């Protein structure tokens, strides 16, 4: 008599609205799926769209998932979607602002850095934002990003 123990992976399918916490949870898990860029792209895209539409993106969950995707995803398309989803929260959440600043300083994709400059406009008075823009205006490899950063810096608000 032989006993064989094994785990079985059974594909499952679930449908529901984006407001459904179970769906959201799955999307957040899928956003960190390292195997498939397509799965990550779709899930981050859906979560980002929810955030952009202002649907229940107040809690830390989705925002955190998008920040993780922005920081760590290897795929530039995924990072771009995450960044766009975070845009509306840049003035509300300092963690989001800092994640966007980090992308502006470090992301290898110039499109993402360009988007980051645009997204940071609502917080252009922040000391950290201006300092990062100064840095980028001087040293970014892309002339376009340097120019855009300088333009933002030219609008010097009279902050006291």
């Amino acid at each position: 008599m032989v006993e064989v123990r094994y785990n079985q992976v059974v594909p499952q399918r679930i449908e529901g609205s984006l407001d459904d916490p179970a769906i959201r949870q799955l999307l957040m898990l899928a956003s960190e799926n390292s195997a498939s860029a397509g799965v990550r792209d779709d899930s981050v895209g859906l979560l980002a769209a929810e955030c952009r539409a202002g649907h229940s993106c107040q809690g830390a969950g989705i925002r955190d998932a998008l920040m993780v995707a922005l920081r760590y995803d290897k795929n530039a398309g995924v990072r771009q979607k995450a960044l766009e989803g975070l845009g509306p929260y840049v003035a509300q959440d300092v963690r989001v602002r800092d994640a966007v600043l980090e992308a502006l300083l470090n992301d290898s994709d110039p499109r993402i850095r360009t988007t980051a400059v645009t997204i940071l406009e609502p917080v252009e008075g922040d000391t950290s934002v201006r300092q990062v823009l100064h840095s980028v205006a001087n040293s970014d490899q892309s002339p376009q990003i340097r120019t855009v950063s300088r333009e933002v810096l030219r609008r010097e608000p009279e902050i006291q």
Partner: protein
Amino acid sequence: MNHLSRPYQKLGIAVLSSMAIVVVPAPHAASAQSSEIVQLMAQEPSPALGHSASSQGYLGVDVADLDQEKAQALKLKEVRGAVITLIDHDAPAGQIGLKVNDVVLQLNGQAVEGAEQLRRMLKEIPAGRKVSMEISRDGAIQTLSVELADRRVMEKDVWNKIGNGSDVFASGTGMGILAGADEGLPGGFKMSFFGSTLNVGAMVEPLTSQMADYLGVSSGLMVKQVAHKSEAATAGLKAFDVILKVGPDAITNLAGWDRALRENEGKPVQVTILRDKKQQTLTLQVDSKHKQGEMQMVEPFGPDACPLQMAEIGPEFAQQFIFKDDAAAEAMRAQADALKEQMKARDFENFKIGPEQMEQMKREMQEALKNFKMDDFKGDDFKFDDKQMQQMKQQMEEFRKNFNPEDLKEFKFDQKQLDEMKQQMEQMKDFGFGNRV
């Protein structure tokens, strides 16, 4: 900026940069790549600090006047006060939760009629002073108390947070600091470390485009420091190596480096580096056992000081240092020229900065510092044009041609000279100069 248009002052800056390279003692033999890199670094602008202000208090708001329509929309009973239009979230205003569209009605018990009045009132309050404010938020009156910040100190703190890699700026992408040292480096400076959980003990930073051009690579990360007994040290990484690849993946920035380390957590990985302009492959064991901690930095002027660090510090302040006083600029230029002549002659046996020279330089620097007003510089206005940059580059090139680092091996400052230089450097740093180039 008329003080920038004077050629001798520009020359003074360039020459001072050169001096900073020259005055490096050389306790360690540096590779050709390293010493050349250091010379290049002398030209690299570092990120600018934004404003600089005196000890005037800084709240961190921009305000505007109200009109009837706006007052109604903000549910005010009368058209009076200053409405906040912009918040600096890094400043006290952001810290206490002031928001755009809050209306400041009173400051320290005094009624605020409009934006200009509030600006005047704020100007008169020194940094560190606590103020009370009455505000209206959506019609509800609140009283808040807040301590005004010293803007210059705050800017330095924020920049350190960005530059040193705070939890925010470094946890994701490393921001250059990836510690892993079970034992810190010897020396003085302690630097808080908030690295990723994957720490290999190397401080890295992206190559600037100029540096990449010079080295003939498209991109990479330069190793600034390696912690003793770290994985990076075990792998054989050294300061001024340039990391080009981790495994098959080209590393172009800090985020890529961090991602690559994460992907290889707990595994050995092949790291392709550039050393002395030749590519090599090292095996780096990426462990995950190290957690957040502290990494001690080498004290730049201590017994273990790396001469290259000193060289970096020198040009950095030199780039920022503008002589407002013509005589001081001229005197410094003359001294630098004399120094250049000595270097040309390679008369190192007789080359010394004597106590008198040192004292004179110190006096001139102090004089220049007294006359230097940061407020004279509006960051965006202050730029070198292409011609000026070209001129400075030519001067640097000329200096390099005549400068042989090998000749400096025997050259040393005595301890007293080093102490005096250190003190001067500290004074410069305390002054909080930001790079305006």
